[in-house]
């Protein structure tokens, strides 16, 4: 979210306060993702529900103090979309692998994209959209290693089976990760927007290797 600041764009108090409020939205939604599907009556779970609600109130309050009604509207609209996408994991939705990836991108990056759009930082959107997807796929693959099954994985497997594919969804995720990293690297290396230090930062953050990746890409 701070790419525009790190890349030297003009950054004022409103940018900063609004960025914090978007971060608070992520905290709110992440808190509710931690609630167990069943047996959430422990004190810790109860407080987690309320922490999420508190953060929701807080982001609204922060933007209300800035009198930025338009951004409240935009971000709320995004939360509707995100909640709908999250609910799809529980609704026997059957969709293609690509559609699941789009859903994940929405869940992971929509609020930041909306923030960028609001402040005319549109040029950073592809980086956050792809970067957050890479993070999520890496996280899911890590959970697979730990033998932890998520609703997203179940939904993906269910869709693949329903649509008659015999593909291994874990392999699909690994290939997708590789593909997204290659595209990300390509976008970074061809970007005239990003300062060198930011390019290097992103390369390190996403574990990208410029020359090797380009070679792989050319081979393909």
């Amino acid at each position, binding site marked *: 979210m701070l790419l525009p600041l790190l890349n030297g764009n003009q950054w004022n108090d409103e940018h900063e306060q609004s960025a914090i409020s978007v971060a608070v939205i992520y905290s709110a939604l992440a808190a*509710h993702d931690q*609630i167990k599907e*069943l047996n959430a009556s422990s004190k810790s779970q*109860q407080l987690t529900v*309320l922490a999420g*609600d*508190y953060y929701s109130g807080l982001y609204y309050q922060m933007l209300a103090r800035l009198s930025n009604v338009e951004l409240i*509207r935009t971000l709320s609209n995004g939360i*509707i979309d995100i909640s709908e996408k999250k*609910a799809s994991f529980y609704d026997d939705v059957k969709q293609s692998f690509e559609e699941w990836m789009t859903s994940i991108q929405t869940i992971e990056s929509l609020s930041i994209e909306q923030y960028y759009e609001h402040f005319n930082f549109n040029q950073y959107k592809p980086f956050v959209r792809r970067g957050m997807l890479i993070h999520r796929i890496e996280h899911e693959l890590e959970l697979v290693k730990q033998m932890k099954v998520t609703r997203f994985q179940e939904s993906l497997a269910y869709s693949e089976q329903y649509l008659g594919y015999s593909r291994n969804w874990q392999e699909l995720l690994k290939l997708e990760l590789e593909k997204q990293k290659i595209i990300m690297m390509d976008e970074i290396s061809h970007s005239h927007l990003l300062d060198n230090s930011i390019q290097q930062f992103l390369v390190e953050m996403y574990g990208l290797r410029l020359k090797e990746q380009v070679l792989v890409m050319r081979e393909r």
Partner: protein
Amino acid sequence: MKLKMLYSDMRSDLDLIEIELEKAVNSSSDLLNEASLHLLLAGGKRLRPVFVLLAAKFGHYQIERMLRVAVPLELIHMASLVHDDVIDDSEMRRGQLTVKAQWNNRVAMYTGDFIFARALEYITEIQKPEAHRILSYTMVEICVGEILQIEDKFKLDQRLQDYFRRIKRKTALLISSSCQLGALVSDADPKTIIHLKRFGYYVGMSFQIIDDILDFTSSDKELGKPAGSDLIQGNITLPILFLKDSPEFRPALEHALSGNMTEIERLELIKRIRESDAIAKSKAISDRYLKKALKEIDELPASPAKKSLRDIALYMGKRKF
């Protein structure tokens, strides 16, 4: 008299609110659609929209504009109920399965988040920053109240002051803000806005105390859940605060809070609480708030809405369930 009869003057506007509420919970997700409608169609008193509309009658009343305030206030209330049912592990609400019982906790989380976001989407049609500052402050305070409620759970030794502070945040603030926002958005004069805000606060306090009394005095059927559920869940309400130091009640209350109470013991304890003076004492405090609410109405400028506010406040103070 039924509450709905008191709303008869506002019937057409309230029908518009119901239509708008249904539209508001419409979602591209079948699951969220069903879960939200499930709650909406279970009904409710729609107190917050009613207070918004009545307060707006003291300004320039335009129903299209007031829908943008009344609908989100009911949605915020609904969203908090969906999440409260997860916190309280409640299976039933208004005689129906809760969202978390019918689906699961996570679905209840997303349903609440969806409804809450929809509420904000609606109210942002109102471009008055002050309205957003009031509502956002209210929402943060409600959460703080709920966090305090969890902290205070199962603690018999708490002060009346703790209880009043809790119910202020839990109930009174949102009703107070409904009145304040209705008046503010309809451009009522500043003094009127303050009196309506205070009216909402007092009536909200009275309402919650009655609600807490009814948890003991109503039947399981009327409540749609077992009588005494508040106590069983560890929520110490006003009647219990009046009984906690009584040697006759203390052991039974501690036993109830231990989670080991049998059904026969529950029925016996409920019977004893009903027969105790704690109910009358709690009622007297509710009445005191009600009187203060009525006094605020006296300060309002002449309007037919004054009678409606009075009737609803009196109804709320005397309701049986």
